[in-house]
């Protein structure tokens, strides 16, 4: 083993590098994306026991699970959106594996989101972040911290008669992050990478539109973003290798120095 990896493992063992879990527990109750009912619906997580040390299997316990690719804490591949449908290596099985390890900038929007569930991250907010923490490097994740993951499920989905009210990025902010900063992807604590009302934006669902159109990735339903520094945490986010998969639930870990 090289010295670099040995040093990193020693740092993890010694506590110099902390491993932070950014993942919600997959459970049947966890809110899923709601679309108008005449459209196809993504299936929630379900678990059926196959055996549990009983006559169905005397010495072993296991389950059959079923779910949508976009369930719980999950990863969006470019093929998920129509803007990314013709790109090379656009599905979870073909994305170069090096992309599954990358550092992150974390933009703290928790105060704004607490004040306004429809808070929209603007280019001005990004400029403010860069003033305080430096330019966002190319090839990094940008994670939008809203503390949304701390809400109960009703507050988390925050559905009203006119749809979900949850924070997300503006079209201009997304275009800027993708075109001007060359980010690897964008991650949120909410059910989607886009705001709850983003179908009214131009273009609709700008995070999906710009990220996937440029071959970038999405992470959503993240938690514990409040435990990450504004820059420098290393994100380990490797989706399941599903043939032609548009995304996948996954375990997202952050390595944090200090």
């Amino acid at each position, binding site marked *: 083993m090289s010295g670099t990896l040995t040093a990193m493992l020693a740092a993890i063992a010694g506590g110099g590098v902390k491993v932070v879990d950014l993942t919600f527990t997959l459970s*049947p*109750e966890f809110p899923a994306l709601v679309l108008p009912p005449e459209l196809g*619906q993504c299936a*929630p997580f379900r678990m*059926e026991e196959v055996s549990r040390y009983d006559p169905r299997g005397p010495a072993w316990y296991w389950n059959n699970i079923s779910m949508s690719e976009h369930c719980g804490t999950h990863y969006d591949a470019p093929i998920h959106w129509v803007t990314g449908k013709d790109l090379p290596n656009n599905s979870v099985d073909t994305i170069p594996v090096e992309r599954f390890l990358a550092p992150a900038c974390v933009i703290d929007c928790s105060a704004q989101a607490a004040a306004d569930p429809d808070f929209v991250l603007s280019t001005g907010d990004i400029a403010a972040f860069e003033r305080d923490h430096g330019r966002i490097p190319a090839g990094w994740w940008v994670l939008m911290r809203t503390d949304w993951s701390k809400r109960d*499920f009703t507050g988390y*989905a925050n559905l009203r*008669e006119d749809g979900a009210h949850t924070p997300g990025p503006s079209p201009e902010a997304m275009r800027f992050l993708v075109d001007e900063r060359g980010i690897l992807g964008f991650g949120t604590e909410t059910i989607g990478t886009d705001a709850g009302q983003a179908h009214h934006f131009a273009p609709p669902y700008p995070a999906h539109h710009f990220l996937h159109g440029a071959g970038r990735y999405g992470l959503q339903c993240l938690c514990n973003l409040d435990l990450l520094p504004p820059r420098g945490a290393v994100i380990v986010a490797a989706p399941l290798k599903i043939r032609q998969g548009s995304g996948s639930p996954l375990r997202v870990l952050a390595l944090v120095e200090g």
Partner: protein
Amino acid sequence: MTAPLPPPKRKNPLKRTRLPVSPPDLRSRQSHLLTRAAAEGRFGLPTCLDCGALHYPPRDACPHCLSSRIGMRECSALGTLAATTTVQISNNVYFRERSPWRVGLVTLDAGPGVVAHVHGDCADGGRVRLDWRLDRSGNATAFAVPDPPSPNMMDDPQMREMTLDPKHRRVLVTDGRTALGQAMAKALSDAGAALVFVGIAEAWKPFPGSERLSAMRGVEIMPLDMTDTDSVNDLADAIGARVDIIVNTGAHIRPGGLLERKGVTVAREELEAGYLALLRLAQGFGPVMRFRGADGANSACAWVNVFSIYAQMAWPAYGAWSAAQAAMLNASLSLRGELRPGGVRVVHVFTGPTEDEWFQPLPPPKVAAGQIASAVVDALRRGLEDVYVGDVAQDFRARLDLNPKALERELGQ
């Protein structure tokens, strides 16, 4: 006169729960002509299809002309109570545990005499109405009630054995998110149910009527997602031993036949919310209900499944959903057989298209949620097993009886 039934006392936890036993359940095949009538709450007598004579008890051949062509004919259920007696001790365990038990001879206006169970309010020599009622073995039995009805008639102990009255019982309505579930909760609460548990799936999704539902007398909102095995089992663990009646109102209606749909995603949802949901509920709640079939005045007694009439014959316009309903109906027939030894009756309620949003483009007549809820309460009070609510379902029933092939063709047009 019957005294009003008081709310049952809480159980003495030191006493063993009495196991359900069945009244005599052997019947001839011809006797099931009466079972069929009792299941639907109709009255009639076996009749010779050649000479037209009515007879009782059911026989394989007409006692007048020896023809073996026997059918049923509707006739007046009224008669006179010619004689009564009260059985103090029976050598049958079921009646022994419920004695004294009143029986008598009713001379029907239509002619035949019938030995019947007799309601406590019937006067010797008085006018009575005879009903075919399903007993706890699920078979038809003759039961005489006073004509006109007496006050508190439903509370007579013999009557309560023949019915599934929600009064003082605890009910679980499985899906309170829908207009049907909410109407059902209201109707059961109004019918005197002691408690109405109402299942709500995905409580994080708002739904119309939620505040009104929570405010109803005796209603307790419970988390229940019938598409999730753990959720069903968790609720069964929590309240299973306190549920006397289940009213399963779950529905996942989607239009579309087999060809115009792409893939099986929606068909899976329909099976999950219908057939598999029933299996989960059956495994979660069935065993304890069957065990509690003789557990005092609020024993477990009924399981109501609300179906579309298209469970009985495919409707190609809603073909995949129709198939899911058929699967659920078939499973429910098995459930009926498995719960019968506990004296718990599985009631099937069939409706035509309802006022549900998923039937919005269809022309009337459509069935309102309140109409179905009233029909369910009526079925419980009368102890029915097969109920057809509204014109479409009743017409369908008649056409299915007459010529299933014609119905198949007509539904496909």
